[in-house]
């Protein structure tokens, strides 16, 4: 039988199953904590930092933090909101995110968060990095211009033998996530679609598939990101 712990979330006393990821526990209590690198069903990584909250006054990523007894969590101070907005702005400045012609526009988590945080003017200098579009694979395109290196694809997409389809290449500010030619050789359409769907932006695309969902019926046309968590 599961044991429950009592903790404080934005001043309210809440109950959660012991060991629950803080992002999920907060969602169950009606509080939205934004995420990008986190994805249900795959191990958390804490790499994008957008889910940073104050745990007993100390900044911690909510995706890698488990709820414990008497924990005091603050999710929405002006400083935290400004920090999250800055994370989104930096991700835009660091890559080449051209929403008008992107297949994921309207379904993109980064774009949806930019709308949530009202990112209207650049506060950081855009780097305009020269990046490639990797299109050798018969079913997938990897657009490095849009990749935010969240590693969701590395952690979440595996072939029938359990091997990852995607892998890191290069180092430092040159790091890229490539399609592994060996593990991805014989993938089917279903796995290719899963790879496209797990990417929070438009960095992984299925070949020949584009703009199938009309404007007005895309995920964030229906409701803004975070709306799925009802207080």
């Amino acid at each position, binding site marked *: 039988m599961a044991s429950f712990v009592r903790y404080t979330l934005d001043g309210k006393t809440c109950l959660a199953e012991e060991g629950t990821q803080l992002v999920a526990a907060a969602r169950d209590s009606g509080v939205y904590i934004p995420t990008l690198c986190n994805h249900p069903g795959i191990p958390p990584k804490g790499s994008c930092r957008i889910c940073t909250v104050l745990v007993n006054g100390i900044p911690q990523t909510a995706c890698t933090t488990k709820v414990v007894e008497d924990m005091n969590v603050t999710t929405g101070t002006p400083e935290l909101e400004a920090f999250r907005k800055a994370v989104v702005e930096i991700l835009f400045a660091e890559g080449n995110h051209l929403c008008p012609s992107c297949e994921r526009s309207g379904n993109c988590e980064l774009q949806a968060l930019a709308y949530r945080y009202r990112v209207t003017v650049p506060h950081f200098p855009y780097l305009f990095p020269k990046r490639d579009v990797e299109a050798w694979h018969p079913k997938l395109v990897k657009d490095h211009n849009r990749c935010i290196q969240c590693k969701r694809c590395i952690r979440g997409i595996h072939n029938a033998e359990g091997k990852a389809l995607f892998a890191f290449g290069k180092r430092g500010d040159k790091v890229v996530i490539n399609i592994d030619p060996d593990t991805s050789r014989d993938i089917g359409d279903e796995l290719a679609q899963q790879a496209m769907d797990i990417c929070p932006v438009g960095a992984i695309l299925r070949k*020949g598939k584009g703009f199938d969902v009309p404007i007005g019926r895309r995920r964030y046309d229906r409701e803004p990101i975070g709306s799925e968590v009802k207080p």
Partner: protein
Amino acid sequence: MTRKIVIEPVTRVEGHGKVTIHLDDEGNVAQSRFHIVEFRGFERFVQGRPYWEAPVLVQRLCGICPVSHHLAGAKAMDVVVGAGTGEGLTPTAEKIRRLMHYGQIFQSHSLHFFHLASPDLLFGYDSPPETRNVIGIAMANRELATQAVLMRKYGQEVIAATAGKKIHGTGAVPGGVNKSLTAEERDRLLKGDGGPLNAGQMVAWAQGALELFKDYYRKHKDFIDRFSSFPSNHLSLVRKDGALDLYHGVLRAVDANGKRILNDVDYQEYLQHLREEVKSWSYMKFPFLKALGRENGWYRVGPLARLNTADFIPTPLAQKEFEGYKAATGGKPNNMCMHTHWARLIEILHAAEKMRELLQDPDILGGDLVVKGRRQPEGVGIIEAPRGTLIHHFRVGEDDLIQMANLIVSTTHNNEPMNRAVNGVARSMLTKAREITEGMLNAVEVAIRAYDPCLSCATHAYGRMPLEVLLYDDRGQLLARRRK
């Protein structure tokens, strides 16, 4: 003493351009040029992108007629994905695209006639510039101005229903469309919500606009017939049976007397018939018909050209107007620049009739949206945009990335005619003129405006942008400056 007159920017057109006119020692026009001073570069930066992005990416060329680029790009990619040209799509896909396109023609032509061109006609090209604009139209004729706004709105609503949004939608995809209409959307456009925004009202207003022009023509026949008239070749798509078709067809060109010089050729082979020349003083190229060469191969595109190449219009009310229009020239090609407005208004009526017809077609509610076949390495898409023939040509690698793009936009085809129009008006207006008036300079712009050039997408400043004339001596010293 030689003079150089610069009209910059040219106003009440889409985009940025300028005119330079050089007067010699005796006050004669030695040289005049219409310069396009902006550079867009879409042909280059679409390279390396996945082919299915092209219809959405290239439409960012323009905010006035993005649908034209969207559809021309999609038509080229239809060929690439093996769906063929025109007839290859499902009935629902083709009719939804056509509806989108007629909505585009309707709103863009309405914008041009009422907002951009009508102030020159209703007030006179040399009337005070303070009132010679769309606000002046609204002050003088509130009902007409309201009608103009609502006609444009209706066209935009049709685009939103078919493309997803009014500007820069995503409706056309390689091989088809991503949505058809719901019965509610269809009924709203067909019948309106109890207001004037319905298909029948648009036909009636289009007829009213034509009557307005024809009344003006009866009173100012000499000006409309003579202003900036010159013979030229004319090029457009026509339907295989010779009908006016703005969405799909074969390429036809006629000379100033109506002789066929391009006889209904498959547009996939456009490169066998058209060439482009580059000149150092403009970012815009100069296309010409290869068979006639650079000197004689230039031509006009757009409403005037289309009504010269087409044999008939396949909607009854527009056909009746077409017959009256053709009678004015005894059935011969019309080379009178200002008659472009007349032709444009007939096309507005045709677009209104086509929208009403399509909205009553059950195919627009269908669910069979996309077809694909054997993948091809390249494709050409041509459409009759509001301003004329629009060519998109893409080559796509085996990796699905675009390797080459060639875009010949409508205004590019009209480059040489617009330069000739500028030269003709400059010579008649400015030669040995003792004083250069604002009205004289606007006359030069009136000639350009008849072609409705889209130099890019800058409608935000019409009527308010400064016009500056600089006078230089033969050593390039600035002698005088005058601002409008």
